[in-house]
């Protein structure tokens, strides 16, 4: 009996100290695990979070607005989501979420065409059939990128289809071009090469649409109630981003360790193909991990126009909190 009591006391002591030692943080992804979501997995596997006494758990999401809702309702503390979705949400409602760290400093939207189609630039898409998925944030920016190239949505035939069906539609000739994120480039190339075809990507960022995109967002409650935890998290996460893009193969292996269904090779190919969304001329000029007021203003201008919102519906710097930038 005495030994049992001692054992119980000892066990409870261990559990209580471990609870005290690590601060629990729930990280919200805006989609299912994949190459662009690798940093948080890398942070866990490489021990970056553990080193700063953080116990991070990951929840998958089903789109930017889903991730935003989960952060706003307190089901998650911090997570990745499109800053454009946050701007649009904040312009219409008082959503208690702010952006703390930029991740993609260029927009990931792109057109994809087959090399054999003869389409060489966005201008060649006039009069063509273009497929997109119904709920992608790219749809809102489509009119803007077409306008930059001198035509409008009326000059193309736009069809909507399930994201999984887009690449097969292009490969089988059911669509001349498709709209997707450049995070899919590696997967599309893989699919097309299985039938001996070649895919070309035409990123919208090359034709004027230059803005912040996927960012690290956090609930205001988390930032005000546990600022110290938030600061440590952002620091470890920034380190994880750097590591992911420096060692894509290791990052692929880390993600595979936590999500065995994901192929490590595909993840590392995805990471390599999107490095320029994270590290590019914008980060060279402004530095990594910092939102500049000019670029935030520019992003808002695009978001407002794309969503049909008034320019003064939001003071865009209000949605940014630069206090958590890692030193």
């Amino acid at each position: 009996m005495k030994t049992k009591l001692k054992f119980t006391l000892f066990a409870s002591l261990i559990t209580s100290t471990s609870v005290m030692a690590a601060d629990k943080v729930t990280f919200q992804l805006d989609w299912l695990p994949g190459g662009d979501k690798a940093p948080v997995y890398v942070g866990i596997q490489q021990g970056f979070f553990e080193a700063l006494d953080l116990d991070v758990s990951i929840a998958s999401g089903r789109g930017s607005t889903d991730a935003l809702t989960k952060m706003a309702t307190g089901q998650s503390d911090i997570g990745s989501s499109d800053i454009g979705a946050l701007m649009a949400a904040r312009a219409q409602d008082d959503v208690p979420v702010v952006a703390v760290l930029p991740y993609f400093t260029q927009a990931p939207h792109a057109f994809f065409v087959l090399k054999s189609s003869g389409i060489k630039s966005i201008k060649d898409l006039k009069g063509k059939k273009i497929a997109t998925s119904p709920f992608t944030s790219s749809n809102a920016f489509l009119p803007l990128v077409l306008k930059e190239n001198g035509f409008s949505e009326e000059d193309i035939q736009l069809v909507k289809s399930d994201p999984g069906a887009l690449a097969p539609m292009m490969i089988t000739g059911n669509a001349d071009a498709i709209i997707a994120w450049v995070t899919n480039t590696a997967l599309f190339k893989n699919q097309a090469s299985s039938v001996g075809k070649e895919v070309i990507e035409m990123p919208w960022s090359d034709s004027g649409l230059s803005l912040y995109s996927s960012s690290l967002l956090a609930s205001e409650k988390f930032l005000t109630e546990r600022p110290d935890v938030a600061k440590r998290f952002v620091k470890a996460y920034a380190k994880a981003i750097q590591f992911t893009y420096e060692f894509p193969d290791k990052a692929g292996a880390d993600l595979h360790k936590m999500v065995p269904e994901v192929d490590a090779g595909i993840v590392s190919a995805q990471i390599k193909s999107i490095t320029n969304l994270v590290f590019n001329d914008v980060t060279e000029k402004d530095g990594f991990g910092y939102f500049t007021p000019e670029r935030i203003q520019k992003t808002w201008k695009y978001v407002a126009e794309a969503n049909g919102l008034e320019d003064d519906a939001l003071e865009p710097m209000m949605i940014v909190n630069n206090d958590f930038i890692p030193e």
Partner: protein
Amino acid sequence: MNQTYPFKFWCKQQVNRFAPGLFFIGLVLLWECICVFGKVPNYILPAPSSIITAFLNVEFSRWMTHLWATLRVALMGFFLSIIIAIPLSIGMMRSELMNRVLYPALIVIQSTPVVAVAPLIIVLLGTDDPSRVLITCLITFFPLVVSTTTGMLETPPEMIELSKSLRAPRYRETWQIRIPYAIPHIFSGLRVSITLAIIGAVVAEFVAAEEGLGYFIQFSTSFFKIPQAFAGLIFLSIISLLLFKSVQWVQMWLFPWSLPKKK
């Protein structure tokens, strides 16, 4: 001449016995041939052989993790709907007022597409099991309420009159006359519900989950691993079929008298 007759009879018997299996094998072979000779790429329709390869490529323990996640939610939702539906039906059968008040509400719940409500339930109840179980229960309980109520109302009126003339209390009328009469109806409702339970669990996993066969299928398509998604889908239908059969087995085991008589 005499010898050929039993042989013919034997052949006919064997064909009857193996026909469903042979038909299925033939169908799979035809599918394989169309994919191989028609050079259909995997992302349009994967061949059965590549689905099997994809199935084997995923570790057995992973399959079990996903299977358990889906099965757990489906069964919890299914049993919750039994716990809700049967007392509700008894109440609605016994009280006209309750029937008038609840029936429209039940129809509203049933006619609301759960897929549309699911994200709201997740926001309200969180991303863990309770919300997924509720989503499953919302899909499964209606057929059970309808079939149980119909079954109890179809009790022959003379039996009810007899029980009344013997001054049997109402609970005995319900438990010893109405419920036994409703058993075949309840089980047909249960058979519909159990397949809906799997659909419910998958719908819930599509909205929020970190594991489960529905999540696995969605995940595989997001990586364009179509053969793997098909493997998940086929696994899911096999589970659904087995659950359907188990409801029949339970009926055969507990209430053999309630089964239709074989010709």
